[in-house]
């Protein structure tokens, strides 16, 4: 059995399985030559080895396929342009020749957003890696879209700033990727998500036109054009540059952790803290399974850990610590001090457990949803229960890691036992279906920060209903030939 979705509507996932392993179509050598003339021949890759590596991002399904030695669809070529003009020339050439274009950043996307399911040319933007401007007075920074998150932050740090946007994949993903997947950083409770941080974009539209939006503190000039690229996942064009908000580096950092009776108490504490208007940089609440997994002997079995991480102006940090202590005091709790928070901070980007589990015959994945406060407790129970009802699942657990005055997210991790690829893919799909259905029924949004990619596209009609038509029309207006990242975001493959 190759797929659990036979009979279901034809989605990107079906197409992936269908096309995997098909012989590569011949790709005109003329086009390879022309791409090489634009970027220099060394920046056009067509070797089997290159195409095999570019056949995936960091989504679990291709990882499973690689692990089990199953094929994946490959692109016809990969091109690495060196600047915006080269991106534009590449886009013009490919559009004129009806070649699908798959933008590629760091390949850290976890939903198959860069998978070349219809063939075509992958446009890797990582050679666009320069920091172009750091504006102290206006507190803005401009960089090219292919810069790796950590490289950008290092450059800002050396100048005395931070951009405050640290997805756990900051060492892998790119500025452009963070924008177009609508990402959230681990410190988002203080600094905001990418849509709050982004001030302007430069992008190359399908066909090759270059546009740039204005950098300003705010404007009232019609629908916000830069925002159309936030979450566009390579379907509306290629982002080549961006201007973002920056902040002076924090004066002080501090952290406190508490053990609370249960997940509901923890959620209520966060809700009350967020209502004060204060914004600790990070608030993480783990359910009992994840508390034990993450903090081991520090926590009593069955209880929940909540970690607050503060940074910024020293006096503000003091105030936040004080207000949180007061809020927590109203609940049964045990103080765990600052060690768990520093432990989290030190290991915050370590994910080695995931590949290690997978090599042991387990399927592991994470999914993130969100809702308003009044819905969260029921949403949590419904998702976990529905996922645990799928035969073959080993565990499902969650934490909350991005909070707002109005609500929070739930980041769910599941583990299932699946020794062979057929079982793995079927089980994977069933668990996701259970989770997404439960989420929609409980009034949650199906994605908090990973975006849609290939895999989640099938749930988009359920998420947006008729409003999805707006996105479809926007897309066909900008990309009448449907060549930009086919199969992603909207699920229909042309």
């Amino acid at each position: 059995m190759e797929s659990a979705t036979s009979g279901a509507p034809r989605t990107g996932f079906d197409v992936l399985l269908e096309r995997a392993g098909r012989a590569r179509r011949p790709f005109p050598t003329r086009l390879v030559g022309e791409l090489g003339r634009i970027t220099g021949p060394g920046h056009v890759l067509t070797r089997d080895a290159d195409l095999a590596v570019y056949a995936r991002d960091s989504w679990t399904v291709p990882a499973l396929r690689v692990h089990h030695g199953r094929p994946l669809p490959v692109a016809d070529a990969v091109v690495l342009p060196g600047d915006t003009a080269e991106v534009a020339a590449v886009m013009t050439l490919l559009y004129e020749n009806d070649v699908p274009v798959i933008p590629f950043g760091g390949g850290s996307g976890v939903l198959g957003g860069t998978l070349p399911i219809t063939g075509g040319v992958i446009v890797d933007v990582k050679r666009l890696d320069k920091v172009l401007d750091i504006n102290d007075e206006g507190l803005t920074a401009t960089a090219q879209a292919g810069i790796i998150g950590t490289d950008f932050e290092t450059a800002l740090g050396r100048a005395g700033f931070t951009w405050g946007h640290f997805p756990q994949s900051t060492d892998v993903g790119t500025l452009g990727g963070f924008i177009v997947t609508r990402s959230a950083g681990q410190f988002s409770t203080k600094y905001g998500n990418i849509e709050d941080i982004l001030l302007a974009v430069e992008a190359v539209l399908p066909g090759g036109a270059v546009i740039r939006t204005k950098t300003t503190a705010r404007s009232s000039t019609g629908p916000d054009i830069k925002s159309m690229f936030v979450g566009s996942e390579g379907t509306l064009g290629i982002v080549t540059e961006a201007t973002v908000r920056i902040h002076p580096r924090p004066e002080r950092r501090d952290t406190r952790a508490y053990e609370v009776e249960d997940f509901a108490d923890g959620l209520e504490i966060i809700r009350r803290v967020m209502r004060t208007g204060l914004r600790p940089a990070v608030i993480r609440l783990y359910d009992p399974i994840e508390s034990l997994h993450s903090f081991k002997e520090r926590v009593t079995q069955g209880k929940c850990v909540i970690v607050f991480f503060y940074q910024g102006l020293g006096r503000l940090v003091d105030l936040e610590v004080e207000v949180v202590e007061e809020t927590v005091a109203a609940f049964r709790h045990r103080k765990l001090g600052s060690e768990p928070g520093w432990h989290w901070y030190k290991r915050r980007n370590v994910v080695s457990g995931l590949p290690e589990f997978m090599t042991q015959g387990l399927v592991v994945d994470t999914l993130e949803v969100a809702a308003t406060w009044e819905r969260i407790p029921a949403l949590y129970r419904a998702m976990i229960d529905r996922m645990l009802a799928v035969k073959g699942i080993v565990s499902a657990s969650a934490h909350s890691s991005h909070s707002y005055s109005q609500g929070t997210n739930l980041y769910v991790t599941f583990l299932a036992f699946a020794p062979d690829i057929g079982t793995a893919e079927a089980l994977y799909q069933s668990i996701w279906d259970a989770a997404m259905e439960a989420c929609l029924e409980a009034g949650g949004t199906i994605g908090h920060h990973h975006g849609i990619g290939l895999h989640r596209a099938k749930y988009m009609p359920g998420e947006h209903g008729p409003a999805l038509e707006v996105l479809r029309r926007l897309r066909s207006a900008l990309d009448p030939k449907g060549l930009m990242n086919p199969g992603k975001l909207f699920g229909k493959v042309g």
Partner: protein
Amino acid sequence: MKFDLSTQTHICAICPNMCRFLCPVAAVEKAETVTPRGKATITLAVERGEIAWDAEAASVLYHCAGCKMCREWCPSNVDIPEFTAHLRERAGRDGLIPDPAPGVRDRLMRDRSFRRPAAELAAGLDRYRDLLSPEATVLYFAGCSTATLFPDVIGATLRLFEAAGVKVTMLRPEECCGFPLEALGYREEAADFAAALAESISKGGYETIVSGCPMCTHVMKERYAALGVELRAEVVHVTEFLDRLAGAGNLRGGQGARPGDGTVTYHDPCYLGRHQGVYDEPRRLLTGLGRFNLVEVDPGRELAACCGGAPSIDAVLPRTATGIGVRRLADAARTGAGTLVTACPHCLEMLGSAGDDGGRPVVRDIAEVLARRLGLWPSGGGGRG
């Protein structure tokens, strides 16, 4: 974790490429193919016969400096340089080693040395004869890069040994240690050089081999056994040896040097730091014996970026190697120190030539700066280099 190619390639091929930002080759070349995960993916695909094992596939494994940064970072202890070494060796057996490496091999086999014919180098070493004691049990192995490019370093090092009262001798001719061949995948040829050296060592009855070249000490310490060669002598880098002498009170700070006088920065060579774990010795020598004011490069020590100078990359992809060097030089320049000290002739060569001259610190070998600091060099005869 014991190295197990199969488990490690699987883990790495499905990791989200978490260490890619530290890989110097990926940082310069940008393509996913050359990231650590990319190399693991190819290794896995090749081992399983999913992609053809041909010159194209083999060439991917040469986009690695062997800098061990990924190994240092990896929470799963995956060792990419071991994958690349494994496949480079296979490429060697199958005649798939890419250009210009075969030319490097041919030259080396002919000249018995990587840089210049061993016989020519031997003639150049004559001037140090007065500083050598043929009966010594300590062998100073200069290494062909030092002998060719930085002969002053040999004189300075010998002067330091002399000042410490240590008798040393040298091999003449001194042939290649085999590192470039081993690193490029020419196992048999490397083993041939290793065996020749091992024989000279046993014949001479040397107990200790000291070299200022981390590639030489690395291959002798860490690779000879896998090449089937046993070296019956302790192998140490010059910094380890001098640090012992200084620690035992046999080498003392020079009269002229005042504490904190003179600011230097130090670049950790990959093959000395991450490969051999030598981080503290050069620092102790600089601040203790040399009484320099040492400002650290960021990043330094375990996460010190590669300079691209190792023949494992420089001999095959010189443009990438120089790109790596330019980045590292910028790290060093940010310290503001006028002098960049390092402890490897390959680093010296790369950092002394990559990038623009403007703003570049003066790049010096550690033995040379110490000998100068102690007033032992260049005065005192023994050759000017």
